[in-house]
């Protein structure tokens, strides 16, 4: 199909216009943005919109995982607790104010101290921001913080205009937000659209491709796909597997896929008394699952089987545990027999429904695979909020299905799910060796050594079959044939990277 692209312009030109004029980019998203208070949401899809009007001090290269300057021109580690930054000069907010260290201090300290803010838990490691001059400042942490740079390259570290907010109040800012990004805010019609226009004085150069940027909120999958197909949207995110072929085969559109940083896992309960407290049982359950078969039949082949949560591009990535999986029915049966369950056993698998790509279907398939080794898994599907409650109340049974993202791109975040204290009463998994490694790595500023510690921990966890890691999900975006767009692993939609062919 790809070769024919050029000739199709005539057909597509007409329909594309329904969405707006030529220089407007319309992106259909599944849920509305939550707020412009960048510190008070945990919503990846909101951040995906925000990145077009705000900037962080640094940005992560999606290819290499390297941390690159963004608003900051340079940065350096002074000591265990201190990082010094220098800002680029001439960066302006959309109201023309110049970006200074004061803005950084205001932004980061707001979230680092604002207990009622939803991102507070991820920023309370920062003690203060010390201003050296208009362009130079230091970030001081409470404890050694090896992942500080990762932290401030993501959600809630956008730099806000402190003067503007002080003059007009935060509510005014929420109604009329301004940032430093390539696009500036025009309007937000809730549950309908968020409109931006290009910012001429963007410090990294004005976006010449688009004058206007519209995010349309279309919750119903098939409607979103229909909008894409009819040209009502140029890009549509979260295309359900059901429609992949339709989008890919349609003459006006193609499907752009990328592996995300989200892992689908089955958490097992190691609490005394549960069959899954026996390592052999856990391993058997893992061995019984044919990860690739799930990916092939439910995810149209898009997705990467894995044994670890830490994917390429993340700090602490263990290559030999990625893009592979264990599958051996015979061994699984043996292990079960050894563990004292020659005839299998009955267990409960909780699963959310509609939260992750094909989550319910995956759960059903997993149960089907377990049935082959004699394990009967009764699936209890739950609506998301009930599922959250169940976990908070530690009422989970043998196993539950969960998909975990990691916007920090650091193994610390990923492996914290095995720390014993945090999951006492919930999974009750404890591996003292892993505990030690994680604790050491947490504040270890020697990156090399830290990397080793995490890889070691992952190996131990794999051996122990602590939880079952199924696969990395794919990001599935439908794109108009007229556009070039490659999604990124972090699930952000960087409009600067979207171009007309």
């Amino acid at each position, binding site marked *: 199909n790809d070769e024919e692209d050029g000739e199709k312009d005539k057909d597509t030109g007409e329909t594309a216009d329904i969405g707006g004029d030529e220089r407007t980019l319309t992106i259909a998203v599944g849920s509305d943005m939550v707020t412009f208070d960048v510190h008070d949401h945990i919503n990846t899809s909101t951040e995906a919109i925000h990145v077009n009007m705000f900037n962080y001090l640094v940005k992560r290269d999606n290819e290499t995982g390297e941390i690159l300057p963004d608003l900051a021109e340079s940065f350096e580690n002074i000591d265990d607790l201190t990082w010094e930054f220098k800002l680029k000069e001439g960066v302006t907010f959309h109201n023309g104010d110049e970006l200074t260290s004061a803005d950084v201090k205001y932004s980061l300290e707001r979230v680092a101290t604002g207990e009622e803010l939803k991102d507070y838990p991820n920023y309370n490691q920062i003690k203060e921001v010390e201003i050296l001059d208009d362009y130079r400042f230091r970030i001081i942490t409470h404890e050694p913080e090896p992942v500080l740079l990762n932290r401030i390259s993501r959600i809630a570290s956008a730099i806000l205009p402190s003067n503007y907010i002080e003059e007009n109040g935060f509510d005014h800012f929420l109604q009329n937000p301004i940032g430093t990004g390539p696009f500036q805010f025009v309007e937000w019609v809730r549950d309908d659209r968020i409109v931006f226009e290009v910012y001429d004085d963007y410090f990294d150069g004005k976006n010449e491709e688009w004058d206007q940027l519209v995010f349309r909120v279309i919750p119903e*999958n*098939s409607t979103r*796909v*229909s909008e894409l197909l009819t040209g009502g949207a140029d890009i549509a995110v979260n295309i*359900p597997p*059901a*429609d992949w*072929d*339709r989008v890919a085969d349609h003459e006006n559109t193609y499907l752009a896929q990328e592996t995300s940083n989200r892992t689908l896992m089955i958490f097992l309960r190691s609490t005394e008394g549960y069959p899954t407290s026996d390592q052999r049982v856990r391993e058997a359950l893992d061995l019984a699952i044919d990860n690739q*078969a799930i990916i*092939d*039949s*439910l995810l149209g082949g898009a997705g990467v089987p894995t044994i670890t949560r830490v994917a390429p591009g993340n700090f602490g990535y263990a290559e030999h545990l990625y893009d592979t999986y264990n599958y051996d029915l015979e061994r699984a049966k043996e292990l079960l027999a050894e563990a004292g369950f020659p005839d299998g056993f009955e267990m409960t698998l909780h699963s959310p*429904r*509609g939260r992750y790509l094909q989550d*319910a*279907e995956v759960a*059903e*398939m997993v149960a*089907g695979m377990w049935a082959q080794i004699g394990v009967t898994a009764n*699936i*209890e*599907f*739950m*609506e998301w*909020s*009930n599922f959250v409650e169940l976990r908070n109340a530690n009422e989970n049974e043998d196993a539950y299905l969960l998909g975990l993202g990691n916007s920090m791109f650091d193994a610390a975040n990923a492996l914290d799910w095995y720390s014993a204290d945090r999951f006492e009463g919930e999974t009750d998994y404890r591996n003292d060796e892993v505990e030690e490694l994680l604790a050491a790595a947490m504040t270890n500023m020697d990156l090399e050594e830290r990397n080793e510690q995490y890889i070691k921990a992952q190996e131990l966890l794999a051996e122990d079959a602590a939880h079952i890691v199924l696969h990395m999900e794919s990001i599935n975006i439908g794109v108009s044939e007229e556009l070039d767009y490659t999604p990124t692993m972090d699930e952000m939609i960087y409009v600067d990277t979207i171009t007309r062919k």
Partner: protein
Amino acid sequence: MPQPSIMQGPARKNSKLKRWLKLLFRSKTGTVGLVIVISIVIIAIFAPWLAPHEPNVIDPVNTHKPPVWMEGGDRENLLGTDNLGRDILSRIIYGSQISLLVGISSVVLAGIIGILVGLFTGYFGGFLDTFFMRLADSFLAIPNILLALVMLGVFGPGLFTLILVLGVTNWVQYARIIRGEVLSIKERDFVRAAKSIGVKHRNIIFSHLYPNVISSFIVVATLSVASTIILESSLSFLGLGIQPPQVSWGTILSDGRDYLATSWWLATFPGLAITITVLGIIFLGDWLRDILDPRSVK
């Protein structure tokens, strides 16, 4: 004169049944309705014997198989398979169980509450009545589906909660109807006659009022079974309906909605099943209204 016995009862009942059947077959739509409803009830009862496959068995190889008459379809799965390769016909057959169960039991539950409240408030009036009517107004001001949504969100979806929720959201409508009927019937002379005889209130309510209001309840209730089946499918659409592995028509239908453009049969056949059932129930309900209407009893 030979002593007539009270035991003539059954014989007369029989002739009543005959009269009804006669009336039934005179009404074309009534007949159609009854046939549909009986068939569906039979299908629901005998689902395990009628269904060619287990409803939940996944077959990753045979997903999205079209119905038999289309290219690619075969006899194994007459109505095709869904995204997990499950047999749609079997799922629809099994789905009838839950759909009917939800429809009927929630209506019965709502009916019991509604009838009792309606009878007592209508008969006694006074403060209790005022209170219940305000309560009824409140319930009526909240759309059914909204109340169900909130309640299911609160208690979590599931068969039992669903029945409970639908029952609780619907009782008001019956209470109102029954109360209205009671208000008019209690002014009728036979109730006043009973009062003047000194019959106890409880007996008046249950032996005079109840038999006279029950028919209008039955008429409304039949139709509610239909609306409830539809409501359940709407809740499934919102993710709050019946949860797998249990199957209802609503869940099959809403599971299939992502595939309407590619595998239309996933959502269309359960939709058709709902349509036919509703049609049957409505026809039956209309017929019931005609024959249970006291004006038609001549």
